[in-house]
């Protein structure tokens, strides 16, 4: 397969997954922002959403204040923001258009219809209800993956799309977890300073906060089923990092990547296999207690660095045209 074609397949899948995860991230923030909480905290949690995607500077050059309306506007509609939902869906569709001959017409039509429907949504963007829009984005991305799994040959093209999806998902789950965990920590600190709230109130808030996070990765019912227990930060982190059956967990993404890469072997893929194997081992031989004693934030920073290093190696091995042999 042409390296350029592989590149388009990979990015089409990554951008679609990114659109979905941006929608998930915005949705959880939108949901938690409706809970009773101090003003300054509210602003901080929207700000955090920007910093985690390294977009704070770009945002501040266009808006005066960090608030729900502005961040939603920037993260959903702003075309100068490469991570906005509109930008991601556009990029996914443009990549699909380039290689429409390599995907089934059903996959192409799904991407194209998403884009055409989005045009109509944009025309009426003032009336758009953010929750419904975010829900729609998730549905379209689910549909894309379903059509992809249901119609495409399980060949190289399919593998490149799968790798794109999994790398993006691992990255995004890690980021969602990190944002919310930090939010939670800073809220606790804030409340400790003020000492204005009673204990029960904090617990109550905790529950909604973590429940919203779980919902954002479609894991609330899963959590109940697995733990049949209260929602605690540690168990939430355990589920999203270590649960092998949970499709958006870090371990699950890494485990699914390994057989894909071994299917796609070429002369330059050894290094990726080594890095992935190492990452899998470090997850397999660790547990949530170790992560918490190391510090969740530090653990996630390291994970992000490693998964992005793997993505770079992957680009070098497959997507950047190989030199003359």
């Amino acid at each position, binding site marked *: *397969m*042409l*390296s*350029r*074609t*592989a590149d388009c397949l990979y990015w089409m899948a990554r951008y679609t997954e990114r659109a979905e995860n941006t929608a998930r991230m915005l949705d959880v923030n939108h949901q938690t922002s409706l809970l009773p909480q101090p003003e300054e905290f509210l602003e901080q949690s929207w700000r955090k959403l920007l910093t985690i995607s390294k977009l704070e500077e770009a945002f501040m050059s266009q808006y005066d204040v960090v608030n729900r309306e502005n961040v939603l506007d920037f993260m959903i509609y702003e*075309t100068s923001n490469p991570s906005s939902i509109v930008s991601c869906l*556009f990029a996914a*569709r*443009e990549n699909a*258009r*380039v*290689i*429409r*001959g*390599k995907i089934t*017409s059903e996959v*192409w*039509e799904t991407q*194209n*219809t998403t*884009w*055409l429907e989005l045009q109509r949504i944009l025309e009426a963007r003032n009336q758009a209800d953010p929750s419904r829009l975010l829900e729609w984005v998730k549905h379209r991305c689910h549909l894309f993956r379903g059509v992809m799994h249901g119609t495409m040959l399980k060949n*190289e093209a399919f593998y490149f799309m799968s790798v794109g999806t999994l790398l993006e998902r691992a990255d995004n789950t890690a980021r969602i977890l990190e944002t919310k965990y930090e939010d939670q920590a800073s809220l606790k600190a804030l409340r400790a300073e003020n000492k204005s709230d009673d204990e029960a109130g904090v617990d109550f808030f905790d529950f909604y906060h973590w429940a919203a996070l779980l919902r954002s990765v479609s894991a609330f019912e899963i959590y109940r089923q697995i733990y049949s227990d209260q929602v605690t930060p540690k168990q939430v982190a355990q589920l999203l990092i270590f649960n092998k059956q949970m499709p958006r967990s870090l371990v699950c993404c890494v485990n699914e990547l390994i057989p894909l890469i071994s299917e*796609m072997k*070429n*002369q330059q893929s050894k290094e990726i296999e080594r890095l992935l194997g190492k990452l899998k081992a470090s997850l397999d031989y660790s547990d949530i207690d170790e992560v918490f004693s190391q510090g969740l934030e530090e653990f996630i920073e390291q994970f992000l660095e490693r998964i992005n290093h793997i993505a770079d190696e992957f680009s070098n091995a*497959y*997507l950047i*045209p*190989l030199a*003359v*042999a």
Partner: protein
Amino acid sequence: MKSPFDEMLDATGKARPHYQVFHNWLKQQSDTLMGLKRAEADLIFRRVGITFAVYGDDLGSERTIPFDQVPRIFAAKEWEQLEAGLRQRVKALNCFIYDVYHDENIIKAGIVPAEQIFNNAQYRPEMRNVSVPRDIYAQIAGIDIVRAGEGEFYVLEDNLRVPSGVSYMVEDRKMMMRLFPDLFQKYRVAPVEHYPDLLLECLKSVKPDDVKKPNVVVLTPGMYNSAYFEHSYLAQQMGVELVEGKDLFVKNEQVFMRTTQGPERVDVIYRRVDDDFLDPLAFRSDSTLGIAGLLSAHRAGNVTLANAIGTGIADDKSIYPYVPEMIEFYLGEKPILNNVPTFQCRKPDDLAYTLANLEKLVVKLTHGAGGYGMLVGPASTKAEIEAFRGHLIANPDKYIAQPTLALSTCPTFVESGIAPRHIDLRPFVLSGKTIKMVPGGLTRVALKEGSLVVNSSQGGGTKDTWVLEE
């Protein structure tokens, strides 16, 4: 002026025999239904993404080419004659290209003046004495045909460089079958959907001699080209790679493509990039669409380009007047298809005639395409004609003039209902081991009342073209 020939109705307003069944069917369809069907077609074309990129517009804005539901129908007999004429013409054109790059017999025989060849920007000295497989230069030809009367066809233009539109021929057929399946039970319409198979067979048959299993690719300028849909469509239908210039490189006069498993040899390139942009080392050095060294690989016979470099010499409008003589010269046959009488403004007598009759003539640039830079005398105002006269006097060499033909019309669904509109036809001729065609072509229709300009860039639409089986 007598009213133009209508494809469906004769002079008394009765349907012609091969249109009879369709005519009766059409009378039973309400305008509302036809309107709904048209909207449905547009929606499907959009969803499937059969669209043109609109240059210089916003994020991903695209438009569809209007599709008209009234087919243009040929009776079997008539098509037979047309097809024979097309095969003959393309055969002679390929002989001509071979000749001007080798023996120059047609010049020696005094039929085409030497300066018309060697001073022509479309002549590529790089191709002198270069052999191409089977001596075929234009594997894919799109010949523009118009009808003036019963059995009276004229060739308007030969397109031998990178003719486009064939994907619309196939997609229009699919759309008609989808919108009106019942019509295909009333008529036996010869299929056209196997065109990509014929194309692949043709491309494989012109492989370099030493190659056993040729690796065929389609070369596109990229997704921002207005015909990108077609490039991608043909590659997909043939099951071959769609490549851009940057995917290919030349080493030791051989062409390779960059794949995820390393370099892979390429043997036949169906290129949809113009000569000028093919090889920055040989032609325009600022081209980013081409492949450095491609010409050297082509000359060494290690890769076949379809069409070959330098075919433009045969479809230039200044060479067009000589095609009937070419047919007699190379094939010893009488031309089956008519040429439109053409005045070459470079000749003083022809220029004088043209200047005296501008209001009656169509004047065209010899190198122009897409309906730009032309004057349609009868449809122009006095001021437009006078402005054009200035251009013509300043650069007579650049122009040819032809009488305005009474292009045939075909009933077409427009705002006011069903009304006649002018049409032309572009059938595609494939030359490989043998010459092959699918029965049909792309019918283009000028949607504006009275307009003779059918180009999609000037607001033209398309119709499905039916050739009936006996």
